[in-house]
């Protein structure tokens, strides 16, 4: 029987979200409170992923992107930051009925993790792009002052 993971999630969303969020906040050097801006932003992103787990890929992607964006500027290895997504698999398995299709879940979590990896790298590249842009504009200023 094919399981509907979206339904499993929606029936248990608040408990899953709470555990998932706490695990994400614990990745910071000092455990971050859930009411902080980081907590709020992670909650939004995670909520989006859970609400669109098997549904709207665009909204799910947006949630993944916002989570990856937060961790891409933290001094964490990508493997640590992205461990959040395999962790979601564990959280879901713990709460799923016995007959749930674990293979489908594994495949979906893999796809989400790969997407998160892409977004994480995109954001790292963005940081370096911003650095280059600032260096370039400084160079431009120097040239301008020597030219006149």
């Amino acid at each position, binding site marked *: 029987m094919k399981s509907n993971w979206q339904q499993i999630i929606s029936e248990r969303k608040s408990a899953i979200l709470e555990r998932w969020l706490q695990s994400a906040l*614990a990745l*910071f*050097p*000092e*455990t*971050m*409170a859930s009411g*902080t*801006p*980081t907590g*709020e*932003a992670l909650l939004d992103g995670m909520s989006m992923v859970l609400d669109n787990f098997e549904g709207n890929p665009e909204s799910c992607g947006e949630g993944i992107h916002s989570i990856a*964006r*937060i961790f891409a*500027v*933290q*001094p964490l290895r990508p493997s640590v930051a992205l461990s959040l997504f395999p962790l979601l698999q564990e959280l879901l398995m713990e709460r799923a009925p016995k007959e749930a299709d674990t293979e489908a879940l594994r495949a979906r979590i893999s796809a989400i993790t790969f997407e998160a990896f892409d977004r994480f790298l995109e*954001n790292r590249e*963005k*940081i370096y792009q*911003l*650095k280059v*842009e*600032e*260096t370039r*504009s*400084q160079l431009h*200023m120097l040239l*301008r*002052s020597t030219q*006149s």
Partner: protein
Amino acid sequence: MSKYAPRKAQLAREFLEKPTPLKGAQADREWWEMPVDFHDGNWCFPGKPDTLKAIGFPNPRKWAATDEDWQLPDGWEKIIHDGLKERLKKFRSLKLYLDSCVRCGACADKCHFFLGSGDPKNMPVIRAELLRSVYRNDFPMVKKILKGFSGSRKLTKEVIKEWHSYFYQCTECRRCSVFCPLGIDTAEITMVARELLNLIGVNNNWILAPVANCNRTGNHLGIEPHTFVQNIMSLVDDIEELTGITVNPTFNRKGAEILFITPSGDVFGDPGVYTMMGYLLLFHHIGLDYTISTYASEGGNFGLFTTNDMMKKLNAKMYHEAERLKVKWILGGECGHMWRVVHQYMSTMNGPADFLEEPVSPITGTKFTNATSTKMVHIAEFTADLIKHGKLKLDPSRNDHLRTTFHDSCNVSRGMGMLEEPRFVLNSVCNSFNEMPENTIREKTFCCGSGSGINAEEFMEMRMRGGFPRANAVRTVKKQHQVNALITICAIDRATLPPLMRYWNPGVAVYGLHELVGNALVMEGETPRTEDLRENPMAIAEEREDGDA
């Protein structure tokens, strides 16, 4: 004794247990056990030897924070010790702030760097403790009284490294001080710590290079007077092309009524130049008798982030120039820390400026009594007064392509209490203004994350972390109201917020308040406006075209 008083045993237990502000995973550690780590993105390049020599700062050398040996000068411990002793005597506030903290932790989660990084040493209480712990160890009277529970420690090279790391992860924004029940201003502790570090050559090039430039040519970028004029005149050409109006700024003109000083970022930086165009249009619109100095060509004062003496020196140049040009008073542009220096320190540092007159608006006759001592008026209150008296012809629909929100610059809001004037101006020049959440604006505003001279590109990751709380508040209004324009009245914000927005909120552009004023001003004799000062199409022009079709 009251039956509600705590029992002796309870007090003794609390005393022995030494409650720590660290919670969660760090609860069983002391903050000083956590090592200092320098890696890409969390430290700024140190001052270059030539820069230090140019301003006579000690210990010029080539070094990096990742070096094992920082080549500190001989006797560096004594230099720091004597430096602290001297400053404790000189600044009574410092002694008060060092002595009075009870480590309640009310400030802990108010710092944008802590909120963005989760690093416990970014809690203001612990940041101050970095210096306080040495103070407690080194100063006999304090040691005698507090020995045993004060959390004191010896000054070592590791402590210096820690200071360098964390006092440059503080933007001196003072948000923590708003929430401190004792009114401790951790920003002033950071200022003194940076001053002490400068005594032994532990510094930051992004701060010292502008200081040296300003010391030499009068502005942070080191631009010579003729280039300064050339740049403003190129903006005059741009204005003419866009509006058909020729504005006529004058330079170093003796006898002008007003000396206008703004951060050099407004003359050279994008998007600051559009704000400058707004000023020029405004002054032309009201026929203001003003001049711009090519010597005091900088409103900003990076001395504030360096040493008290340097701040005093760089501030003095503005007043010397005002005296030389024989103006009546000074009008200051949109800047953050310039106003912190003027509003909080100028009067006792270089003032009162008795050779100038109490500022009076030549257009409305309003006396700016708040500037009686400094003789310097903020452009936002000057423009707000003009609008209040109906002296400006404005068409706010010219900004209809923008859905705005307003970022209170820390130094203007918390440093001088200016909260209403920019909002009044903004509401008069555009039709869509949306406030960010209440706990992120006005005196509780979140910093841009890159102020106080840490806007270095090599520090980008940390800047993105520190700026995250502000960006998150912008995200809220972007989501709720489709905001696409973040308005500021600070030149550093105009430099730091664009990359912050590009990272966290793509699609939100950063504008100066007077850029929007410049868009909205209806100038006499202008050609029909179709584009804003950035040459982006105005919504009303597009509507007009649709109507014609």
